[in-house]
């Protein structure tokens, strides 16, 4: 292995004079503490290394040792339900509360393996050789690593407990080489794992959040971004999605964010149960933590580590969702390293390759047929933290070019504690049309129609609000007042959803559909009333309006009787108002209701 002598250090970057060949993106270790780094630039007589740890105490002359391998992480079944730093080194060890330089990779774990292939079978790369029970949680599979050529099984371990770095399957490659397969294997983080084919996606990644699932959905294998200034609820929204979305595995990358929030998330994931399996949510989660005070360059690597882990689980035929909070911190890490290298800065000081790096990242989201012939997906959701909440800055604008769904967070909604503070007019989803059939299939036949209706109403509301600010609400015609009333109902009852309410923290598609339909009936009923001359205020002052407003909070999942009672109450109220109006006493009725 080649070595090099350090000649210059600045923050996380060092330059060294090599005495042998180094490769770009090769992993290196530096000094006595074996600090981990990566070669990011090579010249004939000098290499530049980016270090992933605190560089205090490093001095010129310190030795840099090459590894002859690209920067890689070790993927294996024991990753699940654990917490790691940006380079997949465990930070869950409770004996030392502090992150110190020179941390080690995860020690081998003993796991139960059950083979599913026999001696003599011909295996392609990426095919399963057996099941692994990792104690608790979801069953996993052991695959032939995708970078091996595959071959005929010459021996396979019997069912039993093995160390995860021990060979359990021996293959004879077509060229006669003998290959071994263990439960873990290394994979370079910056190289996407191969698949058989990318597939179109027609199934939603359900988040349990009504504004996302119904108005701005994301498909399995799709991408979404959440831009928002500080305090608009990016982290809470991502955490809520991490808790309740219907993925098999969640990879949560806390990239340059707060330690206390990650601690809170870990505590909640341990306590909360997955509504589908009844097991703790932590069992399906991998947390990659690189808080804002941990070394900056590891922040850059953590995104790639996260997505490589996500692809590893995808290759086992699972649906994986990755959350990155926040991609802006990742971009800033790029900027910092680029600045130290003296590269020519682009927009706002970010390197000119920012846009292509973002594209590389979001392009790794996909629904695929794996090498083993199964269907899996990786859905990517990234938070963006624009400085001063200004969406015209480079990270937000470039991100917008690559994502399929955008959930723009609004400061004014957040200040009124209207969460999720997604602004309907600053958000979009390109996936909506491909998901209509899925909603149809679960029985919500009017999904597309109602979604359009809601969006038009919200659009109209924004226009009318501007007018109301000038002439006053009462001076507006009844039809416009009705639009405002309906929009209020959609906003307050349907789009607002408290992440901390036990009834409403997530909503199943059926519950979302029922609520959508009820609001639809209200809108249609109120319009009919308006035609016969009943003003919107008369409807607003009925008890049904308050009941509808609070149905999300008050009617729990699965209580369909309460919903149908509400439906009956709505029909009855509308009929009563119509009859009263026919009897020519609409005004009186309205007046007498107001006084209650």
């Amino acid at each position, binding site marked *: 292995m080649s070595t090099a002598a350090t000649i210059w250090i600045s923050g996380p970057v060092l330059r060294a004079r090599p005495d042998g060949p180094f490769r770009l993106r090769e992993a290196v270790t530096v000094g006595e503490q074996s600090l981990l780094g990566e070669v990011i630039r090579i010249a004939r007589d000098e290499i530049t290394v980016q270090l992933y740890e605190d560089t205090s105490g490093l001095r010129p002359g310190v030795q840099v040792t090459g590894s002859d391998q690209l920067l890689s992480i070790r993927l294996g079944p024991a990753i699940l339900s654990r917490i790691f730093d940006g380079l997949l080194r465990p930070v869950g060890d409770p004996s030392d509360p502090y992150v110190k330089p020179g941390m080690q990779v995860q020690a081998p774990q003993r796991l139960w393996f059950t083979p599913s292939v026999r001696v003599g079978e011909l295996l392609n790369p990426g095919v399963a050789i057996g099941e692994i029970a990792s104690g608790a949680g979801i069953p996993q599979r052991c695959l032939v690593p995708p970078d091996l050529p595959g071959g005929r099984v010459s021996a396979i371990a019997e069912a039993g407990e093995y160390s995860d770095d021990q060979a359990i399957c021996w293959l004879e490659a077509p060229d006669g080489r003998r290959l071994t397969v263990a439960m873990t294997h290394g994979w370079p983080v910056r190289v996407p794992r191969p698949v058989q084919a990318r597939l179109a996606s027609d199934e939603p990644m359900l988040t349990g959040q009504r504004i996302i699932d119904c108005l701005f959905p994301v498909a399995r294998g799709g991408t979404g971004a959440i831009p928002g200034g*500080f305090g608009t609820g990016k982290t809470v929204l991502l955490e809520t999605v991490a808790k309740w979305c219907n993925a098999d595995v969640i990879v949560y990358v806390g990239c340059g964010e707060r330690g*206390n929030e990650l601690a809170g998330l*870990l505590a909640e994931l341990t306590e909360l149960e997955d509504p589908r399996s009844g097991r703790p949510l932590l069992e399906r989660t991998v947390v990659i933590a690189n808080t804002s005070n941990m070394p900056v360059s590891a922040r850059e690597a953590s995104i790639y580590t996260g997505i490589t882990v996500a692809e590893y689980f995808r290759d086992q035929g699972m649906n994986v969702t990755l959350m990155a909070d926040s991609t802006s911190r990742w971009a800033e890490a790029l900027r910092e390293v680029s600045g130290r290298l003296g590269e020519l800065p682009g927009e706002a000081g970010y390197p000119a390759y920012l846009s292509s790096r973002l594209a590389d990242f979001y392009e790794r989201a996909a629904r695929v047929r794996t090498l083993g012939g199964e269907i899996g997906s990786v859905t990517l959701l990234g938070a963006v933290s624009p400085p001063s909440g200004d969406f015209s800055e480079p990270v937000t604008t470039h991100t917008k070019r690559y994502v399929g769904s955008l959930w723009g967070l609004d400061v004014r909604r957040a200040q009124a504690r209207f969460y999720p503070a997604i602004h309907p007019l600053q958000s979009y989803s390109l996936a909506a049309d491909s998901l209509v059939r899925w909603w149809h299939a679960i029985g919500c036949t009017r999904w597309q129609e109602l979604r359009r209706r809601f969006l038009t109403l919200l659009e109209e509301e924004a226009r009318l609000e501007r007018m109301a600010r000038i002439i006053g609400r009462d001076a507006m015609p009844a039809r416009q007042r009705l639009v405002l009333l309906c929009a209020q109902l959609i906003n307050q009852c349907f789009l607002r959803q408290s992440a901390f309410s036990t009834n409403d923290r997530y909503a199943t598609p059926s519950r979302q559909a029922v609520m959508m339909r009820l609001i639809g009936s209200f809108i249609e009923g109120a319009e009919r009333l308006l035609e016969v001359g009943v003003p919107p205020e008369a409807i607003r002052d009925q008890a049904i309006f308050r009941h509808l407003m609070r149905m999300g909070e008050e009617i729990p999942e699965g209580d369909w009787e309460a919903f149908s009672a509400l439906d009956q109450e709505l029909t009855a109220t509308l009929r009563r108002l119509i009859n009263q109006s026919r009897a020519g006493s609409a005004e009186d009725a309205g007046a007498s209701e107001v006084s209650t």
Partner: protein
Amino acid sequence: MTYARLVGEEIANRAEGPLLFLSRSLDVGLNEAVEVEGSDGSVRLGRIAALDQHSITVEMLDDTAGLALAGTRVRFFGEPLRFQVGPGLLGRVFNGIGRPIDGGPPLAAEQAYRVDGLPIKPSAREAPSEFLETGFTAIDLMNSLVRGQKLPLFSGGGLPHDRIAVDIACNARLPGKPEETEEFAIVFAGIGIPHDSAEFFREELEKSAALARTVLFLNLASDSSAQRLLAPRFALTAAEYLAFVEGKHVLVILTDLTNYCEALREVSASRGEVPSRKGYPGYMYSDLATIYERAGRIRGLAGSVTQVPILTMPNDDITHPIPDLTGYITEGQVVLDRDLHRRDLYPPIRVLPSLSRLMKDGIGKGRTHADHPALAAQLYASYSQAQQTRVLASVVGEDGLSEDDRKLLVFGDEFEQRVIHQGVEARTLEESMAAGWAVLRGLPRGELHRLDDRQIREHLLGERSQREPPR
């Protein structure tokens, strides 16, 4: 400081502002501490800021006036800056680099800690969830503070942030545990503050007899900027010692972080680094994080570090890089408002842009009061509507408003006068909640979407006898 490892003589080549450039004849590492003894006999502290094959750049922490190149001896310690702390820390006053300035004896050192600290593993952190009562309704009821949180005050020049900080330091308590004061300690770091503010804090703390459980770190406006960068780090090292070794609950007040960021910009410029937004260095986010992230609790250890950093927003602009980056790191913010201050309301806290991210974990059933979350949510929703109505009223006039809108206007005023404003009296959470329910009573029922029927029945109709608002 421990003994010097290496000594270099006649190696200084150039001095420029706070930076000293030495030839590299010795084997030393980045970030290590040095002592520079000038030909004038005075000893100055510094640290190694940059290294290459031929030269060493030292950032001086003491004033460099009077320093000559000839005859200068440099002592290298071979380790990063450390702060020696031990029992007897409480009640003392230090300068920004941990030297006693109260005329007392040097500290009986127990152990030396790296002033830069080490990042706490997220998995070793205990999620903060203990409600800490500050005595201010706008914080306790609307933006609750919990132990281990970092909640900055975003202020402006001329606003009473010092007063608020002192009141929080004196009134803060865990409800239900009044006798816990002995375990409670305050670390106060004045970063680049005028002498008057420093005196104000010292006097006020003395008056309330809190000085005996306080450690003061004073970096005055006249001290060097490089020292300014270290003052919060020394203070937090002391806080971590008190919290995680002595098991105390420590409230750290850092004022004023704007001065810290200005110093960061100055030092960065003198090193010739590429500037980012408004001339501040690109790494300011990461640098501020190494300060703010030192708040928290550690699983299995008794104490906690809670931070209330204060910063003055340049030109009252919340989108300025200093408050902007701070807001992205801290767990919320409390924003002070000039308009409320002019109307003589105290504390002049603008609740709409204020936020406490950890509030949800510290309030509600079993922690404060079961109806606390709903009450706060309702007050927020209605006050934000009242603000919109005010805009409307300024255009169409109050007469053009509907009955309900006029009620909202009244609510907005009452909320500011009776909930936000409280004068010098500290309120318990019960009193704060009663004040909140009282102002909600004037609103039409149709506006109360965030309350359920039971809450309306219990707190707003009927049984109001035992919960009269405080005068």
